[in-house]
């Protein structure tokens, strides 16, 4: 009876001609556990040692709330800005052939490779009120370095390649013929781009947005050099965690970390749902 049930019933693994399922799945799970799951559950474990009232006190502490607002708010703005600029950069790289194109293409990857602290110092130097760009903005009353705006600038810097590198290959895949057909149907160039090309890119843009956003939320090195780190104004959550650690307030640090973890997980989950939905509909990049 059990044999028959097994034969008909649900299988954990579908029969496949590719060998090594057990080995690779085992490796994947062991790897994810060691590198990601154990450290993260450690965070949650330490937080539970805190007790609910204490945790709630830390979570609703004004400094914590402000720092989380700054972290997620700046990351959101930076990711949105990167979506616009990233798509434009990808468009230029995919659609036009110009001298120096390969150099521009390579420059896009620099934020990947550069130590983020170096980026932070460089940005701070340039955008400081006496820096190259800062002194042009100062007469206009715009202060970038050592303000929340500086955080956004740093996060735009580190997030840009994520959007460009996810959108670029999908954009390359879009058929010229689709645009030509739109033109024969009477669509202007602008209509073709906004109604035909861009909607097709939506899933890839969403992926790029999610990556840039996630990266920005976790960023530390570049931000602390340009932010000024004024509590309640330009102090990001990861920095607050470090501060708590330096005060040997491990429980306080892990509590903030757990909150960040929860919010990030929730947002990425929602973005993934939206992505799955749009991918089913639009088809590009599947």
């Amino acid at each position: 009876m059990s044999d028959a049930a097994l034969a008909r019933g649900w299988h954990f693994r579908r029969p496949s001609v590719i060998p090594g399922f057990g080995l690779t799945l085992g490796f994947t799970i062991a790897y994810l556990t060691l590198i990601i799951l154990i450290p993260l559950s450690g965070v949650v474990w330490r937080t539970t040692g805190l007790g609910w009232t204490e945790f709630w006190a830390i979570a609703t502490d004004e400094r914590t709330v402000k720092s989380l607002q700054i972290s997620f708010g700046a990351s959101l703005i930076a990711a949105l800005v990167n979506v616009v600029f990233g798509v434009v950069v990808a468009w230029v790289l995919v659609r036009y052939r110009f001298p120096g194109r390969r150099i521009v293409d390579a420059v896009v990857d620099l934020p990947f490779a550069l130590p983020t602290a170096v980026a932070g110092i460089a940005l701070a130097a340039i955008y400081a009120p006496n820096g190259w760009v800062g002194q042009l903005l100062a007469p206009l009353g715009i202060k970038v370095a050592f303000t929340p705006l500086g955080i956004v600038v740093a996060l735009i810097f580190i997030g840009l390649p994520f959007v460009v590198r996810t959108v670029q290959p999908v954009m390359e895949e879009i058929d010229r013929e689709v645009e030509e057909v739109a033109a024969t149907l009477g669509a202007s160039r602008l209509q073709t781009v906004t109604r035909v090309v861009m909607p097709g890119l939506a899933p890839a843009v969403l992926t790029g947005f999610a990556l840039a956003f996630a990266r920005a939320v976790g960023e530390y090195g570049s931000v602390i050099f340009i932010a000024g780190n004024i509590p309640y104004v330009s102090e990001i959550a990861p920095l607050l965690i470090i501060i708590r650690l330096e005060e040997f307030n491990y429980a306080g640090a892990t509590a903030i970390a757990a909150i960040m973890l929860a919010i990030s997980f929730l947002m990425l989950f929602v973005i993934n749902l939206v992505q799955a939905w749009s991918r089913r509909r639009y088809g590009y990049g599947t």
Partner: protein
Amino acid sequence: MDVSIRKVRKEFDRFPALRDVSLDIRSGELIALLGPSGSGKTTLLRLIAGLERPTAGAIYFGDEDASHKTVQERNVGFVFQHYALFRHMTVADNIGFGLKVRPGATRPTKTEIGRRASELLDLVQLSGLEKRYPAQLSGGQRQRVALARALAIEPKVLLLDEPFGALDAQVRRELRRWLREIHDATGHTTVFVTHDQEEALELADRVVVMSQGQIEQIGTADDIYDTPNSPFVYGFIGESSSLPVRIGNGELWIADRTIGLPAPDVADGDATLFFRPQDVELLDGCGGCIAGTVAATRRVAGTRRVELEIGGERQRVEIELPVGHPASQQSRVAFRPRRYRVFPARAA
């Protein structure tokens, strides 16, 4: 809408893809551009659509010079081999796209566009699929949607680039007949590109045979098949056998023998004889005929193909015999083409 192509030339990086092509397409006609790849047929189609600009020459829609009009202004329906549907839009939105992008003054209302889309879906026999996405359709269905989308803008000319090339043989035959019906029902001037001669000959009112950027011959299926006017057309359309011959005194000679075929209009000298393998009569004796040793025989569907080696130079030609014919058992066969054409060697 009449379309007139006048001495159009198109070069890509100085490489001529079309060399001074002229062609008159009558209103309501169904025209096939037929040729091997690289013959310029797709380039010609794209020039009519305005997707390419001619290097020289002009294209007239009716009495109007359309050469410098943009694609959008030309109002042509274009169907690509790989459908080029908008995959983020439903079938209905795809079909309605051309109406939706019109400027406010000439744009129909939303309900009107929806009604028009349903009407066209009926025409292409896909009623009820309005809400589907292109990814949920088969290849044949996608191409029908692409055609409905092109028809939605009431184009002056309908242009199809290898419309059935990506479909399997059975769907292709079905859609071919169906396209003819649609054409007869709507009366659009239609030009389609194909490399499939069967498709061109069966479907089109007139076939334009192209080769190396030039038009070789324009005519009905009968004209093209029965009286090819160049060695290229003879070789490209249908089966053909060719044999090098010599013209002397208005007669054909192979080596030092006449073969009993007159060629009054061809100048003396070397020439090439073309005939269809099935258009031959077998002879018993050989007083003025082509004779050769049987080199190979093959069964092809209802007939038998015999390959003969002719003369001292062992030139091979193919002829077709009924399956039961005793000649295929012989080692030597003599025959004479019933219909043939001779082209001077220079042209061949």
